[in-house]
């Protein structure tokens, strides 16, 4: 007799598709981190003195911080001196047009299906493509410029819009925030900068694809999105990395600022290399993402679909500072083989009549460990704060785990906080029901998983939802028969 659960596990053995390596000469600094390396990075990027000082201050703070160990993840200590902190394609000089871009780079994007070039135009997506650490191209600049929207690489923003960067950088995630945020502040090489002027609805979805390519290169992007009063922007972030044996560190920082009545929607599909079936290799993804609902009636919405990385450590959060502001968090996190994810959100209610909504869907397969960690904090003057949290776990097989760590701190008696949680398992009964109707095993599993994730998928922009669904299908595809 076949044991059902092992069989189901077979079904979810994933195949990782974007596993190739582009051979381009890179300008890479020797491994190790010191003041000199930071000065080198800053100089390489022609940064003004205040930026260099900002980085150095972060480095000083970082040196005195202990490595955080509270997350429900296990990994060997990281040797920060063994990492190279700067890697730029040699031909990193600014391109005037796409024709000048190294064809190999474009080929890489082709393999990933990044909608650049005319495809981008057709799809209506502007892409600021980050290849390792340097931004190589931005589309739709003109159309965005007409709307007054600034969408460029962080490096460019530092030199061309220093007043905006200085006003907002580090105001949501300060250099001292946490170990990895401090590290990022010291060594970040690039990222995206978005500024939406007052009363403007960004005319298109903004999108950045990140890709880690160089061996042993940590990638530290820094993203800053500012929506001024009465503006709206939807930002998509998609990630994928080629297959490597070494563990690679990824410590990004994303800061969002929403002023009065502004809305920011931030969506992520993350498909980094998760390591092989035995837990070898894979990306360490230690990210600080935080949104500040600074203005009244502002709104920030995070949607994430996380299927990759060996270790994910990520809590996109909202600080609900403005009165009547609201925060949302929709998440699907899939772990299998030896992947570990400790993810969730923080909703900090500070203003009056603030509300937050959390929908978290965790899927564990193989020996995957999936933890939801969420904080709902209602501060003293946050009258009439409301929160609804729904936290569902789906287990596939017998050796995986789902863990929930909800923290609720209410310091105002008018708070309404609801928390619902469920754990279920894809059982032989479910599979057999589908099989008996003629639906094959792979289709059955992906159908059941898709149904489980529906509430989150519907929050994603259309094309992204299709991509996310496909990604889960690929993740669940495997050794049937």
């Amino acid at each position: 007799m076949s044991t059902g659960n092992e069989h189901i596990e077979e079904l979810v053995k994933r195949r990782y598709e974007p596993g190739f390596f582009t051979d381009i000469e890179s300008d890479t600094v020797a491994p190790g981190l010191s003041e000199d390396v930071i000065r080198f990075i800053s100089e390489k990027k022609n940064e003004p003195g205040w930026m260099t000082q900002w980085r150095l201050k972060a480095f000083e703070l970082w040196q005195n911080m202990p490595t955080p160990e509270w997350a429900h993840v296990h990994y060997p200590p990281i040797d920060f001196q063994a990492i190279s902190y700067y890697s730029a394609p040699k031909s990193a000089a600014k391109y005037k047009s796409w024709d000048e871009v190294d064809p190999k780079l474009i080929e890489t994007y082709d393999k990933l299906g990044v909608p650049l070039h005319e495809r981008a135009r057709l799809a209506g997506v502007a892409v600021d493509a980050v290849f390792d650490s340097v931004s190589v191209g931005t589309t739709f600049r003109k159309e965005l410029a007409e709307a007054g929207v600034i969408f460029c690489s962080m490096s460019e923003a530092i030199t061309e819009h220093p007043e905006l960067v200085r006003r907002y950088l580090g105001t949501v995630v300060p250099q001292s925030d946490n170990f990895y945020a401090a590290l990022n502040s010291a060594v970040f090489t690039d990222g995206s900068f978005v500024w939406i002027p007052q009363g403007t609805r960004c005319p298109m979805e903004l999108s950045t694809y990140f890709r880690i390519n160089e061996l042993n290169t940590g990638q530290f992007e820094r993203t800053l999105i500012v929506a001024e009063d009465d503006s709206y922007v939807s930002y998509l972030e998609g990630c994928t990395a080629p297959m490597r044996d070494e563990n690679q560190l990824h410590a990004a920082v994303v800061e969002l600022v929403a002023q009065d009545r502004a809305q920011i929607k931030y969506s992520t599909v993350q498909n980094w290399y998760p390591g092989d079936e035995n837990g070898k290799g894979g990306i360490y993804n230690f990210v600080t993402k935080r949104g500040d609902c600074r203005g009244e009636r502002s709104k920030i919405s995070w949607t994430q679909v996380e299927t990759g990385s060996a270790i994910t450590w990520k809590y996109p959060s909202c600080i609900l500072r403005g009165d009547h502001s609201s925060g949302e968090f929709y998440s699907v996190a899939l772990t299998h083989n030896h992947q570990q994810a400790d993810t969730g959100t923080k909703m900090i209610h500070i203003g009056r009549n603030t509300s937050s909504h959390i929908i978290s869907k965790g899927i564990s397969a193989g020996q995957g460990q999936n933890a939801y960690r969420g904080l709902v904090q209602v501060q003293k003057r946050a009258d009439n704060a409301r929160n609804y949290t729904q936290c569902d776990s789906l287990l596939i097989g017998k050796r995986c785990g789902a863990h929930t760590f909800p923290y609720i701190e209410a310091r105002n008696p008018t708070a309404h906080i609801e928390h619902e949680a469920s754990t279920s398992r894809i059982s032989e009964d479910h599979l057999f029901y589908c099989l008996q109707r003629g639906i094959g095993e792979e289709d059955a599993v992906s159908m059941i998983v898709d149904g489980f994730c529906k509430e989150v998928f519907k929050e994603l922009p259309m094309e992204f939802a299709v991509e996310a669904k496909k990604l889960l299908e690929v993740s669940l595809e495997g050794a049937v028969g």
Partner: protein
Amino acid sequence: MSVLKIDKLHASVEGKPILKGLSLEVKEGEVAAIMGPNGSGKSTLASVLAGRDGYDIDSGTITYFGQDLTELAAEERACAGVFLAFQYPVEIPGVNNVYFLRAALNAQRKARGEEELDSMAFLKLVRQRLKQLKITDDLLHRAVNEGFSGGEKKRNEIFQMAVLEPQLAILDETDSGLDIDALKIVSDGVNDLRDDKRAFVVVTHYQRLLEHIVPDSVHVLMDGRIVKSGERDLALKLEEDGYGWLEKELAA
């Protein structure tokens, strides 16, 4: 022509023998009722026929339209026209009922080398079947069986059967837990699908269902074997006298 022919079937679950030499033949257009006390092997028979994992065939044969049924995987049996109406249909949250049924029908059509139905053609078919079964469309837009009452679940099974149009339909205690109105809807649905081709195996504990679905043959399953076969009056006798007299007759 015989649709299903089971010959001296021995089957076990986790090493425990449940079916012990069961033989049964069901012909085209026939409705065969399988009755028997609890634990006699009725549900095991249904699971074995549908090809459920964990049910091991130790000896004997199952022939379906002359083909060895045991060689087919569960989904292949479904595509070949074997349908099981479940005693306890599972809930699949978030998966729309119509979407599920279309995926099922198209998987079956594809396996048979037929063209898949597009959504327009499929919806037309669905409406036709709803009308035919005189049931409302309130279940269509919900997730598969999610939050359905017992009656609604069974009604959904019959509706799926009507859309998938099997050659052999196995009803596993479809009457259990139904009130009289639900029972009527379900049996009307089955009667409506009866024709001179389609064969039914109706597994039930009570005679009650057979008042509504009048069987062509009645077979009594006890301790893993068919111990007596007859016509409808056999079911009535069992209802009146229970299974005790049969046990005595067998012991004699």
